[in-house]
């Protein structure tokens, strides 16, 4: 075999390996989803959705878990969205290229890389202890808000950056003030992108278990929360708890709860992808 033939053979071999690598992740994903569906799907019925947790696997349900997840999502959105979008607007529209702006930028990039469990330690000390919130929904939502803030800020900035200079100039030329321009021109024009970022940040928050365990969310809560100061559990914590029990019945429960959690996650991500595609089609500056 000549040199060039062997080179061509290696080239082909790598192509096959490339296809293999590209699809192995997806194959594993498929095996995994199939496995979960096979184990958990038959466990899901109306009773499972509306039952309280129980020591007997066959009677346990996820009512408190999904109610807690829903509460956490709403509270986190209320706290994190205004802060994140506000910070994004400030950095993109108001901040001059000062040292502070530069520092803020590096700092936000750093916060995005802090492990979620560290946010849990922060929440435990600040919200749970110093502010006396206890292991409540409010403490959990505050903690998760800090966690997803960098995501919202970064996506808001990108969305605002995509709005062309001419739109702002046109607004100023008509006599609008800075805030009037931001509020009536820049924000509506970048709304699709900002919304996509918000939804993606929520899909991150919905799957988090570690920081909430650290702030003291419990696996067993015998009632659904009715105020933000109540104790709570969320789906990921319920799944973690069931997974760590040896009895097979609880494994089935965990698989069933995973199906519900994945449905929520994929739904949120699907909406985000849909919005992004629609935005790309619609907007032509």
């Amino acid at each position, binding site marked *: 075999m000549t040199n060039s033939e062997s080179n061509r053979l290696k080239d082909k071999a790598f192509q096959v390996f490339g296809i293999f690598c590209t699809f192995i992740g997806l194959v594993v994903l498929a095996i995994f989803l199939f496995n979960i569906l096979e184990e958990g799907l038959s466990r899901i019925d109306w009773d499972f959705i509306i039952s309280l947790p129980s020591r007997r696997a066959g009677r346990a349900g996820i009512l408190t878990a999904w109610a807690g997840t829903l509460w956490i999502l709403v509270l986190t959105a209320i706290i994190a969205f205004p802060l994140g979008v*506000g910070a994004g607007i*400030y950095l993109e529209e108001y901040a001059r290229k000062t040292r502070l702006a530069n520092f803020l930028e590096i700092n936000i990039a750093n916060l995005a*890389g802090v492990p979620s469990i560290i946010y849990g330690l922060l929440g435990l000390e600040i919200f749970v202890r110093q502010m006396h919130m206890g292991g409540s929904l409010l403490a959990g939502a505050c903690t998760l808000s800090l966690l997803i803030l960098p995501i919202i800020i970064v996506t808001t900035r990108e969305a605002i950056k995509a709005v062309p200079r001419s739109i702002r100039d046109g607004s100023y030329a008509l006599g609008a003030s800075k805030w009037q321009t931001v509020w009536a021109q820049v924000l509506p024009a970048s709304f699709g992108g900002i919304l996509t970022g918000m939804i993606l940040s929520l899909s991150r928050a919905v799957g988090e278990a570690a920081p909430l365990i650290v702030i003291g969310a419990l696996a067993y809560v015998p009632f659904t929360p009715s105020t933000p100061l109540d104790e709570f559990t969320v789906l990921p914590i319920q799944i973690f708890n069931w997974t760590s029990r040896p009895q097979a019945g609880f494994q089935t429960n965990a698989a069933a709860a995973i199906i519900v959690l994945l449905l929520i996650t994929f739904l949120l991500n699907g909406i985000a992808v849909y919005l992004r595609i629609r935005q790309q089609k619609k907007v032509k500056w």
Partner: protein
Amino acid sequence: MRVSEKIIEGLLWLSAVITILITIGIVWVLLSESVSFFREVSIVEFLTEKEWTPLFAVKKFGILPLVAGTFLTTAIAIAVALPIGLTIAVYLNEYAHARLKQTVKPLLEILATIPTVVYGFFALTVVTPFLQSFIPKLAGFNALSAGMVMGIMIIPMISSLSEDAISAVPKSLREAAYGMGSTRLQTSFGVMVPAASSGIIVSVILAVSRAVGETMIVAIAAGQQPRLTLNPLVPIETITTYIVQVSLGDVPHGSLEYRTIFAAGITLFIFTFALNNISFWIKKKYQEKYD
């Protein structure tokens, strides 16, 4: 009008500055509790003692077993994710049709959106039993399956960041390589990958940082036995798992055991902080080489 404009600007400024307060808060919380911890436990013992048993009657406070556990699961994860992720990046850029690339990229991103507790379930109930069928000595909780599953999770991180880096290499370099008669493979690994090396290194560092801080997969599948070993077949404990373990128990606030999670936390924070900043530095230093 003037006044309300100023108030709004002030509020926006405040929401941006809150991010600095978060960083200060993290550092302050970790430092203040750790300082109380290191008043009772010498820092020399913390860094050199080979056992970690704060919850036992005979307490020993050596962080090394937890660091070893974290290192082991991270190394396995990178050993899985780097070859696969880099191959995907090269394949999609240099071999695949544009349409395949457009379809596969969002599909791979799905891997990154799945909650980690779900990956933990997968590692414990599917991957470990599967591996046990040909490694009989593998324990029910082990670093191997947790690390491998973590590797699958971070594949899209390495593949998409490396892919961006490779596609940022100027076309002229690729064309020159083809002009010299190189095959696609020689062009890829002789020209494109070296030219994109800074971006690829950044992707790996960020992946390491992610793996070091990953919690639920290892908490579910890797065990809760701090052990100074590099054997992937036995139960170990990572820094993050220890924090979860203590949080699930009834450790009274203000006790030495309570403070151990902050000492563990600051160790973790130092690792990830250093890794992230190295990656920023590399990015800044080498980014504009081809502009």
